[in-house]
């Protein structure tokens, strides 16, 4: 278990550095997109880029890549629970406020 958690070869530092460069590039991209004012999709694009960044941190910096399946399943359940809470709340809010928002 211990040996499998992180690759021990010298490439680890280079991989981390590469991930960091991509993360900073994505940060620049999300700021650039926000400046362009593509209002219709701006929020979606921002959240999308943030999710890619969060995924990179999870997989590489938090070593999710090397974790046992059980841990990935547990994280999946936690994220599913959060998604369900958001989905159910929005289905309710849409019904109550939908008319108000669209008027």
């Amino acid at each position, binding site marked *: 278990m211990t040996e499998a958690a992180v690759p021990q070869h010298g490439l*680890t530092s280079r991989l981390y550095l590469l991930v960091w460069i991509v993360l900073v590039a994505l940060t620049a991209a999300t700021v650039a997109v926000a400046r362009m004012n593509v209002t219709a999709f701006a929020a979606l694009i921002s959240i999308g880029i943030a999710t890619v960044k969060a995924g990179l941190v999870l997989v590489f910096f938090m070593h999710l890549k090397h974790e046992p399946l059980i841990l990935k399943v*547990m994280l999946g359940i936690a994220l599913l629970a959060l998604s369900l*809470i958001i989905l159910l709340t929005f289905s309710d809010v849409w019904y109550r*406020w939908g008319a108000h928002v669209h008027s």
Partner: protein
Amino acid sequence: MHKGEGSVDERHLDYAGAKMGMWIFLFTEILFFGGLFLLYSVYRMKYLAEFHSSAAELSVVLGTANTVILLTSSLFMALSIAFLRKGRRGLSLLFQLITIGLGLFFLVNKYFEWAEHIRQGIYPDSPVLLDMARGKIIFFSLYYVMTGLHGLHVLIGVTIIAVMAAFTRNETIGPLDFVKLENTGLYWHFVDIVWIYLFPLFYLIT
């Protein structure tokens, strides 16, 4: 390396259990911040225009700088674990100290940001804020609560990394027993992920 009363083998190490425990704690943190993000999303839907005009009042430059600072701190945190595992204690310690420095740098920026808002009279329950439109009041309340709780997490993270730095120095943790530092890293990266979402939601969606 023998230390204390026994050899490494006599110490109780449960690597998988220790890490799973940390992850379960992080799941509770996901739901904790998730609830606040939900609150933000619902009110943004209701007060779209006011959320956008309020977000325009935040400094994109400071927000972007703080994003890069936290991402960089995450890089050094990850490196410090990799180097401790290789037995490079000195480098690991140096990278932990850099992580602490960047965490404090983030908080200093946060201080200047909040100070500027407060100077303008915008803080929870302030007469200036209460005079504003409802959506603005909710936006800035969420701004203070969410960046405040996140800042508290940064402060806690910095404190724990400082303890880890002491552990690294006195060899409580090392190449054979590094799970404490690894769990600290998990916490620090989680705090980074929360900011990755806070940044576009409060600074960019204008």
